[in-house]
């Protein structure tokens, strides 16, 4: 079987890549500024909701229900999309998905296609596959465009160019668009508007991802900000949507939960500027040919793991990245995958499905287990528990060397080893504190400490408090 392109070929293991990234002060500065802004705004957007916790619980339960009935719901989705004039395709892996999309483009004689930002197509390496087949894919999301024009790799699931500041973006635009532009965000946005306008108005085939698909109605949902999504979903004659099989919700009503959870968690808005919903083909409005490509690419093997499968609840909001102290310091590219940060650390190795793959197996160690990701996750994915679970699997596959991997992966990310140890004690150990205040056993790697020495009682201060006081 071909390798899963969810990780980039030739990427170093996380500790190696992160070592290099830590030396890049510009990168750290850019990330610190961007994630700092969004953390504060997300907190405010969430604080406004009195029922946030109930929404999170409902989000978790709806997604668990989807995973429990995935086969039935997928067949139901297929029926409803087909009944409304769409065509449904199934792909076991990236290679199969890419071939389906390339054939569809060729059938339309399309030399160029416009694309709306989509994690699924990034995961399967669709752009490269299309290019090899003679079809050029134009990214239309501003951040994707910055990455594409800069011959760069994404570093964040919502804002793939988060590692670039405005003056770097200006430099890329001037070089690749051949225009004079200032580094004012409004001018940069205008430059992108002008650059893409003609493409939107003339391109016949568009490719999108999907945030949600409603099984009982066949409706597909895409949330966006700029209007590039609306352009792609409305103007071309043919629309090809590529979607992971877990992106379902059972009913239209279930969307009421996610349309509240997602915008506040991702861009810290009450609602994102544009959300498009379409069901098959509507005569006289929008693309008259609609293809839905459902991809597995490691999801069914993830589903088999009773602890790991909760990663499939993810709605790709990126809140866990924005709060992660490790991500903030190493940047997204160190994870060697389109899925970086805490979600990447649990999803990527499971999609790859090979604990002997050195790079993928290093990812569950890219964490201090502080728990901030779990706190913000809108679908309550217990990322720290999945991390410890996957670490144990890596150890089982590889033997005893993993503890040193763990330490080298995270300790030096913090300014000094003693601060890291303090973080460990305050954060991760406290998670396993028994009700009576005594620590009896810890999951690996803590188990090595509990078995060999007394574990000091964790300080009252949580890692979060500690981090807030000591960050930077």
């Amino acid at each position, binding site marked *: 079987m071909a390798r899963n392109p969810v990780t980039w070929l030739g990427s170093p293991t996380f500790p190696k890549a992160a070592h290099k990234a830590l030396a890049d002060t510009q990168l750290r500065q850019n990330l610190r500024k961007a994630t700092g802004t*969004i953390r504060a705004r997300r907190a405010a957007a969430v604080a406004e909701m009195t029922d946030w916790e109930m929404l999170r619980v409902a989000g978790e339960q709806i997604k668990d229900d989807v995973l429990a009935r995935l086969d039935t719901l997928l067949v139901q989705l297929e029926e409803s999309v087909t009944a409304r004039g769409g065509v449904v395709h199934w792909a076991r892996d990236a290679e199969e998905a890419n071939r389906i999309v390339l054939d569809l483009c060729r059938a339309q004689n399309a030399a160029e296609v416009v694309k709306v930002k989509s994690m699924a197509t990034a995961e399967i390496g669709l752009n490269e596959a299309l290019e090899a087949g003679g079809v050029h894919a134009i990214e239309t999301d501003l*951040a994707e465009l910055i990455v594409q024009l800069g011959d760069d790799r994404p570093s964040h699931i919502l804002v793939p160019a988060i590692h670039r500041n405005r003056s770097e973006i200006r430099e890329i635009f001037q070089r690749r668009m051949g225009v004079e532009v200032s580094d004012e965000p409004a001018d940069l946005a205008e430059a992108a*508007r002008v650059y893409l306008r003609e493409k939107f108005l003339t391109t016949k085939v568009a490719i999108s991802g999907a945030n949600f698909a409603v099984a009982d109605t066949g409706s597909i949902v895409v949330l966006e*900000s700029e209007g590039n999504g609306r352009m792609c979903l409305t103007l071309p004659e043919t629309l090809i949507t590529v979607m992971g099989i877990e992106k379902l919700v059972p009913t239209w009503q279930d969307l009421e939960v996610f349309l509240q959870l997602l915008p506040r968690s991702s861009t810290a808005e009450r609602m994102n500027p544009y959300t*498009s919903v379409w069901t098959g083909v509507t005569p006289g409005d929008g693309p008259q040919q609609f293809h839905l490509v459902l991809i597995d690419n490691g999801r069914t093997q993830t589903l088999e793991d009773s602890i790991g499968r909760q990663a499939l609840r993810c709605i790709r909001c990126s809140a866990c990245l924005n709060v992660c102290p490790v991500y903030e310091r190493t940047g997204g590219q160190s994870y060697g995958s389109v899925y970086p940060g805490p979600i990447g650390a649990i999803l990527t190795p499971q999609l790859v499905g090979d604990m002997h793959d050195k790079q993928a197996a290093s990812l569950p160690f890219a964490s201090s287990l502080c728990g901030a990701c779990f706190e913000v996750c809108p679908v309550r994915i217990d990322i720290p528990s999945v991390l410890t679970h996957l670490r144990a699997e890596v150890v089982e596959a590889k033997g005893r060397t993993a503890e040193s991997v763990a330490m080298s992966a995270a300790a030096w990310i913090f300014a000094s080893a003693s601060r890291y140890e303090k973080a460990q004690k305050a954060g991760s150990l406290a998670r396993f504190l028994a009700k009576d205040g005594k620590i009896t056993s810890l999951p690996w790697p803590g188990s090595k400490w509990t078995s060999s020495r007394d574990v000091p009682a964790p300080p009252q201060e949580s890692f979060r408090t500690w981090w807030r006081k000591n960050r930077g």
Partner: protein
Amino acid sequence: MASAREEILARIKAARVPPAAPVVRGYNRQGPSSVELFAERVADYRAIVHTVSGVPEFLTSLRGKRIVAPADVPAEWLVDGVTWLHEPLSIEELDQADGVLTGCAVAIADTGTIVLDGGEAQGRRALTLLPDYHLCVVRADQIAGSVPEALARLEPTRPLTFISGPSATSDIELNRVEGVHGPRTLEVLIVT
């Protein structure tokens, strides 16, 4: 060899995921459908908002402009002095228009959102996408309090567009900047 479809469905079955607990919908399903709250939330997105008692009086501001209007807008909206553009319109014609005037299907007070469903006074989706200015008329009785109430009023199989403020991006240093590909000016007329 089994088809991809059969194989994926078989793998899902083989994973034997146990049934999930029933969904508890303990969150708020209703909210105040107040005109004031809606107006305030729309304005938060840097859209322009007016609360008026009649539409035609306001439309004099469009005089001298070339404005797209769906064929089924109320006749009284088509005031004199404006060049009204009606379907069939090409993509180029839409792109060159000064703006578009529509009604809406539903609005949401809690989030300051307007929803179009291609129904009465709204036209197909391209109409509200290509012109750089969108003037949207919202009747007070179209305002739902919450997202759940709004979704319950909508027909999911129609092509829907939820609009919350003008086109924007958060892609440069994670700060919101208005105005990328969709209409850069959104003006909302709330009719009470």
